[in-house]
């Protein structure tokens, strides 16, 4: 058997902040422009495709994040086994890419998911992120793509003071140690 290895595999706790890497998580990038594409993904995933900027929708198993007018980011709410991952990816690829409705790309290992919880998570983000979280904070389901310490991230507001942050795998160790360093001073 091949070993499954993620860069961080750790959880750290500070006063009122908890940071943990959560993997394996299924992640799929979806791109398309047509109405058919939008209806199709909604149907295939039993989810309402979010068309408003910076929003998301979720069902029991999956969350679907708006990234741009023709791009969405799908991820599993729970850890998911590799075989199921292939199944969903294959199904979407067949129903969307094969029929020229858009593109379906597995990005499970392109991104690393870090969960941030606690009443001071926004203070932690403010150490390196120019984005104004004042409204985001209070909008469950809100999504933002921005920079933390010059590193691209996608942040999903799951719940009050409960965020999932996605960072490209090769940057993840650096961002992780940077956030842990900042958390010491909050």
């Amino acid at each position, binding site marked *: 058997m091949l070993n499954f290895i993620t860069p961080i595999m750790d959880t750290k706790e500070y006063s009122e902040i908890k940071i943990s890497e959560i993997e394996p998580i299924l992640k799929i990038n979806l791109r398309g422009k047509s109405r058919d594409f939008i209806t199709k993904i909604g149907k295939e995933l039993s989810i309402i495709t979010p068309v408003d*900027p910076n929003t998301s929708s979720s069902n029991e198993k999956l969350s679907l994040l708006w990234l741009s007018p023709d791009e969405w980011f799908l991820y599993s709410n729970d850890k998911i086994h590799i075989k199921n991952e292939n199944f969903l990816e294959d199904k979407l690829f067949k129903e969307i890419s094969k029929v020229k409705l858009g593109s379906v790309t597995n990005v499970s290992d392109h991104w690393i998911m870090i969960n941030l919880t606690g009443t001071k998570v926004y203070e932690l983000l403010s150490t390196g992120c*120019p*984005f*104004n979280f004042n409204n985001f904070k209070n909008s469950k389901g809100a999504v933002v793509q921005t920079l933390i310490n010059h590193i691209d991230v996608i942040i999903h507001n799951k719940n009050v003071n409960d965020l999932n942050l996605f960072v490209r795998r090769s940057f993840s160790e650096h961002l992780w140690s940077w956030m842990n360093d900042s958390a010491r001073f909050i």
Partner: protein
Amino acid sequence: MFLINCPYCGERDQSEFSSGGEAHIVRPKQPTELSDDQWAEYLFMRKNIKGVQFERWNHTHGCRKWFNVVRDTSNDIIHAVYKMGEKPPVK
């Protein structure tokens, strides 16, 4: 550091964007039929205005969409933002 109102994502910090130079320079459909001078006009010539300038910007660290910006280069005031393919606003 200014703020740019991305036509897709809303107002964001300048650090999320990158500039793509002057807007509304259309790539010739039949480059092979152009003279050296005509091709050079497309390739090299830019206005570089002090004042109101039409520019292309990319929300590189956000939605990755390109769009147009009407910016006064003398004070960085952005007068308008509009999507690719849309008509520039009349002054």
